[in-house]
């Protein structure tokens, strides 16, 4: 067995899980502290070098996160194992999390002493032997996507940009996501080597009050959406006389389009575990839970493993680091219900009940799990807390806005060149994220709207892209920062359809406990559906607004309270599009099925028959010329032919332009 940083260096070290040393964490990197021995120091230095370049001086990293796995990183991993064997390359092969740059998935990273670390993008298993050969044998990096540094030790270095020169990297501020894609998420040793657990170590030395002071001083606000000051929340729970107390990490990331929590938990799970432990210490809890969303089981897997590792080394359990503090964590994987993300619903779910939210106050800090003082924090909030305790409040607060300090992770998806998760200081503009980082729409098309904050957020038009993103600023425009999901929409998105989409989501996810949300959202959905079918009236818009206000004001929890936002914001910024559906019976984006039809350009049709074969209602048949034609009486405008046509000769036309003669 190789000696790891987590092990004792020699017999003079008295640390053990049963009899822990309070300087254990500090001693890993800068020790030994209790005795002086150059050999023990050297042991650490050598191990740190091994972690960076592998035991054999060469290292290959393959990311294993849901996103990279979906792009085939497991096959790439196997190809790597096979290739190093075949080529006789002496390299350590390890896994990592993900950098958050979905557009280069699956990627691999090579490093070797004396050579620049190189990242290769969109790697196919078949490419792997060639890549390994050129890097490790020919010492040639010219095929790489980016380099981490320049050493002058490899061929072709000048042809490849440095990662730190590329906009989407350079313009980020990596604080809480610093380890994502960098460390092996299953290795506590790598987390500690990267500075992990210094926060907890320090917290246990200064005591709970000073931890809370430090978090309050940092100005950290909850990253789960509402932006409640974290230090204050902890303080309120701490002041409660009732015991026991509980702390819960909210990993129920449910907003479609938001995956920053998944990325963090899959790539740097120990930071979350450390943050929750610090929270537990600060409020005086001895049990923590992490509640993970059903659709993201890999988060649960990584977090469970992290909890086990932390336990094994005494970073969870009894008398943590000799402080007298006992604390443990359980990871719960949900079975799928959006409302579980709401804190009181989450508490009910953990109690083994139906996840129904309840009226607040009393807030969980006073009466939460099993009626006891409980804090619920988003996982990114907790990871920030761990980082703040390690790095200090000032450093955290050095960026951000007057009201909101620090950074936040955002996910930009939809019609952009570089879908990904980006960490930036709070207060940058929407444009900064969607254009400078994500690269804007791919095909030169124009941004029409940006949806921010998921189903509780809203759509803002392109004209407002320069708004800074903060909890409060977007509200004026009808959106919210929320969890930080940003979906970019171009001309081919119908805003009425988009509003209907979000209502489909929220009405299906309404838990059914209160009437305004359960019935109101359904009624609103019906009106939108009518409009998208071309049967709406101007009166409907009035009713829609009224219903929206009712649902907003009288719902029990924020699910209903915010669900009307997508409708209200589109009504406010895109009312013309609603009117086109109502007055002209036209869907300008050519999305709403009842208002469009399809036509085959017989000139260009190659008579392959794909459309006819896939038509669910047999509306397409062969005509004399051998080409295909759509029977408009039978056609249900489903669009399958449009999607399968290999030569793209099927076009959408307004429904009215076909039979009616007014083309």
């Amino acid at each position, binding site marked *: 067995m190789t000696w790891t940083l987590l092990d004792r260096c020699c017999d003079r070290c008295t640390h053990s899980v049963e009899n822990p040393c309070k300087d254990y964490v500090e001693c890993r990197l800068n020790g030994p502290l209790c005795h002086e021995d150059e050999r023990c120091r050297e042991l650490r230095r050598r191990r740190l070098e091994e972690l960076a370049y592998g035991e054999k001086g060469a290292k290959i990293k393959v990311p294993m996160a849901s996103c990279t796995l979906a792009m085939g990183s497991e096959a790439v991993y196997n190809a790597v194992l096979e290739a190093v064997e075949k080529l006789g390359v002496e390299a350590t092969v390890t896994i990592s999390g993900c950098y958050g740059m*979905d557009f280069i998935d699956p990627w691999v990273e090579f490093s070797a002493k004396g050579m620049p670390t190189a990242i290769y993008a969109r790697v196919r298993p078949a490419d792997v032997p060639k890549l390994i050969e050129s890097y490790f044998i020919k010492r040639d990096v010219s095929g790489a996507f980016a380099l981490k540094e320049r050493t002058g030790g490899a061929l072709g270095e000048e042809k490849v940009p440095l990662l730190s020169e590329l906009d989407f990297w350079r313009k980020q501020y990596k604080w809480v996501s610093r380890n994502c894609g960098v460390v092996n998420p299953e290795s506590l040793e790598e987390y500690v080597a990267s500075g992990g657990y210094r926060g907890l170590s320090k917290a246990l030395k200064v005591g709970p009050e000073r931890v809370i002071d430090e978090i309050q001083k940092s100005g950290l606000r909850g990253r789960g959406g509402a932006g409640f000051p974290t230090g204050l929340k902890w303080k309120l729970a701490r002041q409660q006389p009732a015991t026991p107390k509980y702390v819960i990490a909210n990993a129920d990331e449910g907003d479609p389009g938001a995956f920053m929590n998944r990325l963090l938990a899959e790539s740097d799970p120990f930071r979350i575990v450390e943050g929750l432990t610090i929270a537990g210490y600060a409020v005086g809890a001895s049990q923590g839970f992490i509640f993970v969303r059903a659709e993201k089981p890999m988060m649960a897997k990584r977090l469970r493993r992290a909890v086990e590792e932390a336990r094994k080394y005494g970073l969870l359990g009894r008398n943590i680091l000799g402080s007298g503090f006992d604390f443990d964590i*359980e990871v719960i994987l949900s079975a799928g219900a959006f409302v579980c993300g709401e804190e009181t619903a989450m508490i009910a779910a953990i109690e083994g009940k139906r996840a129904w939210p309840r009226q607040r106050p009393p807030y969980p800090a006073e009466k939460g799990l099993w009626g006891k003082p409980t804090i619920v924090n988003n996982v990114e909030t907790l990871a920030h807390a761990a980082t703040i305790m390690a790095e200090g409040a000032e450093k955290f607060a050095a960026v951000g806005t007057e009201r909101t300090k620090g950074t936040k992770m955002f996910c930009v998806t939809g019609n952009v060149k570089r879908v990904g998760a980006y960490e930036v200081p709070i207060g940058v503009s929407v444009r900064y994220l969607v254009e400078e980082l994500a690269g804007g729409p791919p095909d030169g098309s124009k941004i029409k709207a940006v949806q921010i904050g998921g189903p509780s957020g809203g759509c803002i038009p392109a004209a407002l892209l320069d708004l800074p993103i903060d909890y409060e600023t977007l509200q004026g425009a009808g959106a919210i920062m929320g969890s930080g999901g940003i979906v970019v929409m171009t001309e081919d998105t119908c805003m009425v359809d988009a509003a209907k989409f979000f209502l489909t989501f929220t009405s299906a996810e309404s838990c059914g406990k209160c009437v305004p949300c359960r019935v109101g959202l359904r009624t609103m959905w019906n009106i939108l559906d009518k409009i998208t079918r071309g049967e709406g009236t101007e009166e409907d818009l009035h009713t829609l607004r009224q219903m929206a206000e009712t649902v907003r004001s009288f719902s029990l929890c924020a699910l209903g309270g915010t669900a009307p936002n997508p409708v209200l914001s589109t009504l406010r910024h895109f009312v013309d599009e609603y009117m086109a559906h109502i007055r002209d019976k036209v869907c300008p984006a050519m999305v709403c099925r009842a208002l469009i039809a399809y036509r085959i350009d017989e000139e260009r049709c190659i008579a392959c028959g794909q459309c006819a074969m*896939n038509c669910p209602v047999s509306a397409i048949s062969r005509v004399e010329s051998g080409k295909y034609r759509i029977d408009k009486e039978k056609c249900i405008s489903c669009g399958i032919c449009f999607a399968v046509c290999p030569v793209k000769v099927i076009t959408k036309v307004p429904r009215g332009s076909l039979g009616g003669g007014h083309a």
Partner: protein
Amino acid sequence: MEEKGAPPNPDELFRGLQRAPHNLIEALRRVQAHYGYLPLEGIKMAADYVGVPLAQAYGVATFYHQYSLEPLGKYRILLCMGTACHLAGNRLNAEFLRSLLGLKPGQKTTSDMLFSVEEARCFGCCGLAPVVMILKPDGTNEIIGRANPRSLRAAVERYRRLERGGSG
């Protein structure tokens, strides 16, 4: 592998789970993995194990999307209905699959019990929209990114072949 459908031994099924209500969600998941769905006897077993009333466990079983009170297909095809996937056309993929598999409105599972088509929530892989996940009987899954009618037809045919030629 243990044969599905036979009543399991609770101690084995719930191995490692503390008998506490916070484990109800997990206990039900294991019951579903065993039977392929949640029969009443299985819900009762989970309820007894974690120590909550059957009525409460039943309420929970009907609350979450991932539980099913009726048997599902051997291959569960989940289509993401998140924002990015909606915009990228997964609704159309769903319709295509349903028509390909001959499912009537309201019908989830093919009559030969081979496939179910279900809508799911965002998998957090929005960069690959539209995303389809196929849950396989051995508990693993296949994720199809940038799914389209052609790749879906190919996947369905692949599993059909596997079933015809394979161990069944």
